[in-house]
């Protein structure tokens, strides 16, 4: 009997040891899952260059694990500094970012990213604020920044941000340039589904300066823009979220909520109440439009002006009824304007007349972000019950069009697709393209290279003699994958 008990104990002990060993094995195998897959699929030269700004990369057990992986697959690893140029094989970049330790595997020469793995995220430099949307809410920041001047033509960005994407800790859906803390440090407004983040891109990392939450129970990010609206030499930020109100038998109804913020000393300060509509910054002017019951955009487009310390929606129409705030972009030449059609075509027309010359080019279809608008008539797709009905339609916001100081017009071209459901893989390239107005109409220029990632949004970075773009990239077109930043210069 006693003998049997010992055997049982021994069996339990062995099982426990086995489980522990299996757990450790699984943990180790899953430390760099993306790397493993990419290495196994790589058919090129078995050379890999490890570039790192870590003080003692070989002293890190994570790096040792990585090197073991490469050696096991027959690679010949080489150590190099962070800025080293590599022409052949693979490049493994190791960085410590706000989101944790990141390993990025890319192809030498083309820079194509093959894998990106991240170790446990380090705490952000500042936790998200849960401040209420009240105008006089106290804002918290651990970083102090001088009042943000407008980006100067001489402003530059960290070199590594323009070479490799920088992973973000947030699921950012929209981006705007809020200012610069110094000539080399842009301050960015990142819009997520539940907050506006003010961050500083610095030295290959993103430093969180401040966060403001609209306090919506269920919503999603719609649009963020920035510009010197009140002419004080500093940029204001306009942020718009949709609150998704649902009913069991009514479907979803997206209601826009919008605020205007100042940026001062690294803090966001609301300059308006909830304006309950859509906002857009265009040519340093702030425009507003309301949502309709059954249409996404209703009524005239109105200007938002500063009255004392607060911004308020004016009463005089800037554009007449029937215009869509995000679909029309006025051009500096006379009364001409660009229009997005419902089927994602770009048309050159006039402010008074929406029809005109269409750009003959496939610009792809961008479906996010969108607003859910109730249908006037319920569609009974497959029956009478609630799951069988369609009560709303999702209307994508027309994609962003930005104009540089020297009147170049840029927009996003969607060339990447997710592939077939379940079995497909993403393919194709997104890019930021320039729309040029010529006597014959519109032409499409491609000053920036395409990227094998979905461009969720972009903003312009004025540089000496040219305009760079800062891309907000994501693995998925709806922004639910990993978010990254990448700077591109024109060819």
């Amino acid at each position, binding site marked *: 009997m006693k003998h049997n008990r010992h055997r049982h104990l021994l069996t339990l002990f062995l099982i426990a040891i086995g489980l522990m060993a299996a757990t450790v094995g699984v943990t180790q195998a899953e430390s760099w899952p993306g790397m493993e897959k990419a290495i196994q699929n790589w058919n090129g030269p078995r050379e890999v260059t490890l570039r790192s700004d870590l003080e003692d990369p070989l002293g890190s057990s994570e790096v040792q694990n990585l090197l073991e992986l490469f050696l096991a697959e027959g690679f010949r690893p080489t150590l190099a500094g962070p800025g080293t140029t590599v022409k052949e094989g693979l490049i493994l970049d190791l960085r410590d970012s706000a989101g944790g330790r990141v390993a990025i595997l890319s192809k030498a020469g083309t820079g194509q990213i093959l894998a990106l793995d991240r170790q446990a995220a380090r705490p952000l430099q500042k936790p998200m604020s849960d401040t209420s949307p009240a105008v006089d809410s106290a804002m918290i920041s651990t970083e102090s920044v001088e009042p943000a001047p407008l980006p100067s033509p001489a402003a530059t960005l960290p070199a590594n941000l323009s070479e490799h994407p920088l992973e973000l800790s947030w699921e950012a859906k929209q981006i705007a340039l809020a200012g610069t803390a110094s000539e080399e440090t842009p301050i960015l407004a990142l819009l997520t589904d539940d907050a506006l983040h003010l961050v500083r891109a610095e030295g290959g990392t993103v430093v969180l300066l401040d966060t403001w939450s609209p306090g919506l*129970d269920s919503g999603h990010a719609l649009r963020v823009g920035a510009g010197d609206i009140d002419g004080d030499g500093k940029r204001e930020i306009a942020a718009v979220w949709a609150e998704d109100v649902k009913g069991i038998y009514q479907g979803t109804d997206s209601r826009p909520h919008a605020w205007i913020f100042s940026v001062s000393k690294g803090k966001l300060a609301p300059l308006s109440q909830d304006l309950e509509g859509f906002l857009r910054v265009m040519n340093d002017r702030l425009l507003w439009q309301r949502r309709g019951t059954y249409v996404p955009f209703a009524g005239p487009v109105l200007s938002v002006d500063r009255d004392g310390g607060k911004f308020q929606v004016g009463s005089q129409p800037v554009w007449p009824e029937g215009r869509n705030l995000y679909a029309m972009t006025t051009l500096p030449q006379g009364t001409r304007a660009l229009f997005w059609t419902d089927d994602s075509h770009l048309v050159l027309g006039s402010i008074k007349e929406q029809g005109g010359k269409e750009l003959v080019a496939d610009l792809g279809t961008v479906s996010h972000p969108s607003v859910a608008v109730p249908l006037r008539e319920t569609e009974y797709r*497959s029956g*009478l019950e609630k799951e069988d009905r369609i009560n709303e339609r999702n209307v994508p916001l027309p994609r962003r069009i930005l104009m540089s100081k020297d009147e170049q017009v840029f927009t996003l071209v969607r060339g990447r697709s997710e592939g077939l459901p379940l079995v497909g893989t993403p393919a194709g390239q997104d890019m930021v393209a320039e729309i040029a107005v010529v006597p014959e109409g519109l032409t499409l220029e491609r000053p920036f290279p395409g990227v094998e990632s979905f461009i969720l949004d972009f903003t312009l970075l004025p540089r000496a003699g040219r305009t760079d773009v800062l891309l907000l990239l994501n693995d998925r077109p709806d922004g639910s994958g990993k978010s990254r930043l990448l700077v591109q210069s024109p060819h």
Partner: protein
Amino acid sequence: MKRLLCVFLLVMVGSFFLAGTAFAEISFFGTAKIKPTWYSNFDFNNDKNDALIVNEAGLTKGQHVRAELRLGWKASGEKWKVMMIAEVDSIMEKDNADRSFYVLAADDNGKERQPNTGAEFGIERCEFTYSFLPQLELESGWNIRFLDIKTGGLLYGDDHPFVGFRGKITDSTNYEVLYIPIQNRIALKSEGPFDDKDHNDWEVYTAKLNYSFGKMEDTPPDSPFYANRSFGLTVSPFFAYSDNNSWNCDLQYYGLEVTGQTGPIKPYFEIVLNHGDFDDNRDIKSWAMFGGVELPVNKAFNPYVAFRFTQGDDDSSDNDVEGWVGITDIGRFTGLLGMDGNILGEDLGQSYGATLYSYSPERALSTNRYGGISNNGSGDNPGQKLLAIGSRGDLSGILQGLLYKTQAFFIWYDETDNLTNAKDPGKKVDDYAGTTVDVQLLYAFSKNFSIDYIFSTFIPGKGQEDVQDANDPAFVNMLTMAWSY
């Protein structure tokens, strides 16, 4: 009428030739709903077993799990559309899951068994359209069609087969005309009640015009009480002709429906009258109405109040058939008072008389039938006066994804002279039929999966107590796990 049907069919065939070989966009969609359900005491008597209860999956009672599994696909070209949905809808048990045929065709007593007991996919719904012009679109199939589901659902909403046309006359005006062959049956034997080729037919012809005016788009959706300048209404006159050879009668329905928004208030109004006769000259003449208002306060609280009326018959022995019977009373799926599984929308034919989908007690009697669900609505029914209060809303302030709807119905009979008092024989039945209370909570785990629970009870009033000689409450507890894609 037959000639008209032939013309319809020829036009439909021709339209498919006209469609040619255009490329098609094809998409698939579907739903899977598993519904653990408990029906209790539908006869209002704790001491007796309930009679059988019919729901979409078949005959059942007590505890059961219903599975409604649908796979749909649709294809469309520039002017044409085709949609079909295959469905299994069954009470879950071994004989209808993963089975299709039994070898043993007789039981131990030699009684013939149903040879095919499996639940197989069949075409539950289909629809085919071709648009000749914006003003003229041909439509056919069997899919959801309705005349008044947005308001009271007093007259018609169902998935009967149809052939018809619809179109947009102006930006604010559209129409639909339908031929609906609800029954087209002949006798299998050469003798019997249905030996005449038209004898058991029931055909319905409908027409509806929708005219919208006002400016609905002016509504700031977020602020019902703030600067709400909206005033938009849709006024819809409609007509139906019911050629009901099955019950040897024919009649016309004339109705008007109004929906829309006036300031912060959403009004719902409907009135329908019918007039016709049986072959033996009994006159059919009745009416029904519905009115309701919804006043959105905020996203969590949208209270409403409504009144539903169907006229009752005061004397089943006279030649005037005055009890209201629609073509399909579709109260269960109406916009304001509907709920997918509340007790009044289930089959209460064994007690109150409102059968599956219907809210009015059209089966409280079985005489002078002239329509209704399965053509079994009695023109001698007692009618209904229903006062409803309720609210619905989004509780994401408490828990993101949590939604609710709750309502209470206070129900009176319109006429009780045709009802028999079982409790106090010889005495007049009381007017108050009873009270229902519905509570539904839904939690959406994602866009594609949700779980909801319905608690619903019918507390019999003095009137039902008189009729049933019992007054125990009836209950529905229903859980729905729904996948949709």
